[in-house]
């Protein structure tokens, strides 16, 4: 179950109803989870129009694939977060690829308005204080690995190359970073309630 959501039980019921073709349930699931998904998409992909398109694609997939949601692998929110993150990274990559091999981008608005994630992650997260607080509690090397993987979509070997660290180190940092982050997010919530 999601540690965050008192709504996690109902979100599982909503997914089941969506799988059965219930449009109202889809609307409620959207209301419940779209702000979280959109915040994440915007963190990866800062162009608002591109982010809105990705948001729509992600929820369209939710509607189409709800029957394939597997509760043994995590909460509906986690399922959604994975999809949102993957689609946002796909979009970011396709914009970058197009830029590198630039001839005539079909979608100029996307290419022109896109913003690369800033080099300094602290600046990016400035207006997102809870994320910043939680991430800030991680040692810098662990934070860097999680940010490169989750917000920039690098694979572990790409991260190892980028940071000039052994692959094994990157793996360990990812695991320890997530473990510590879990503790940090738990503490945030406790102090918030």
């Amino acid at each position, binding site marked *: 179950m999601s540690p965050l959501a008192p709504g996690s039980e109902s979100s599982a019921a909503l997914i089941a109803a969506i799988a059965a073709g219930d449009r109202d349930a889809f609307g409620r699931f959207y209301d419940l989870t779209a702000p979280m998904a959109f915040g994440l998409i915007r963190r990866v992909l800062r162009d608002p129009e591109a982010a809105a398109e990705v948001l729509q694609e992600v929820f369209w997939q939710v509607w189409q694939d709800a029957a394939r949601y597997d509760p043994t692998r995590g909460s509906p929110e986690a399922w959604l977060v994975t999809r949102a993150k993957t689609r946002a990274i796909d979009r970011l990559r396709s914009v970058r690829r197009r830029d590198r091999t630039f*001839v005539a981008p079909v979608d100029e608005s996307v290419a022109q308005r896109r913003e690369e994630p800033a080099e300094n992650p602290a600046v990016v997260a400035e207006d997102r204080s809870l994320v910043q607080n939680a991430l800030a509690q991680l040692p810098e090397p662990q934070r860097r690995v999680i940010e490169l993987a989750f917000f920039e979509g690098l694979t*572990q070997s790409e991260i190892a190359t980028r940071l000039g660290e052994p692959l094994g180190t990157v793996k360990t940092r990812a*695991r320890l970073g997530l473990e510590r982050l879990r503790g940090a997010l738990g503490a945030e919530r406790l102090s918030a309630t």
Partner: protein
Amino acid sequence: MNRDEIGELAAAYALGGLEGEELARFEALLEAGDAEALRALRECGDTLVGLAAAAPEPPPAGVKAALLERIAAAPATRPAAPARPLPRRRPRALWPVVLSGAMAAGLAAVVVGWSVSSTYEKRLDALARDAEQLRAELRAQQTVIAILRDPATQVVALTGLPPAPAARARMMWHAQAGGVFVATGLPAPPEGKAYQLWAIAGTNAPVSAGVFTVDASGTGSLAVRPLPGVSTVNAFAVTLEPAGGLPAPSGDMYLLGKS
């Protein structure tokens, strides 16, 4: 594999950075229902939900309306009603078509150059999603076949009760692998209602095995996952419940079968 190794694989998988042989290894663990791998993955997933939920942003106006419009306009693309529908049959021959299509698209993109890359990227993305979907369906089919072949599988016949005396159903149930349920002769459920399948073990409260509806001919099916804490089932029953199902049965019982 020790706990830390599984933890590392789960972290990388959840972050989206697992690749190659390790990805295959971890997916095999998940497919096999490895409890430690699933637990580690759920934990990582919850952590990332926490990270995402800590920085919500109001979604732009219009996206929800656009989605609802898209859904209303394309009801035909909606998968059949059951919550976990049995996989649609697809001819095996589609595989080479999809694969050669992907290869051709890839080759052409290189030859023509990247000036038209965005068109091909979209097609490749679509083909990759098709391939992913086919793989998922194949895995689901293999599960069904494995259940049918296993001698430990119980076959339970359910018969219709007064609301639908002509209804019949079969449950092929395997405690570790899950089951396949097929029903016929059920009336179409009223608007906002669906059928819910229950597993009853001993004197325990019934456990929901999923929600399904039926097509125009009164036939419905459901792929049932293994039910946590339920091994030997004494009876299966079907009741009419609000769409989406309830945690405990409340409506009329339509089918009952004892094993």
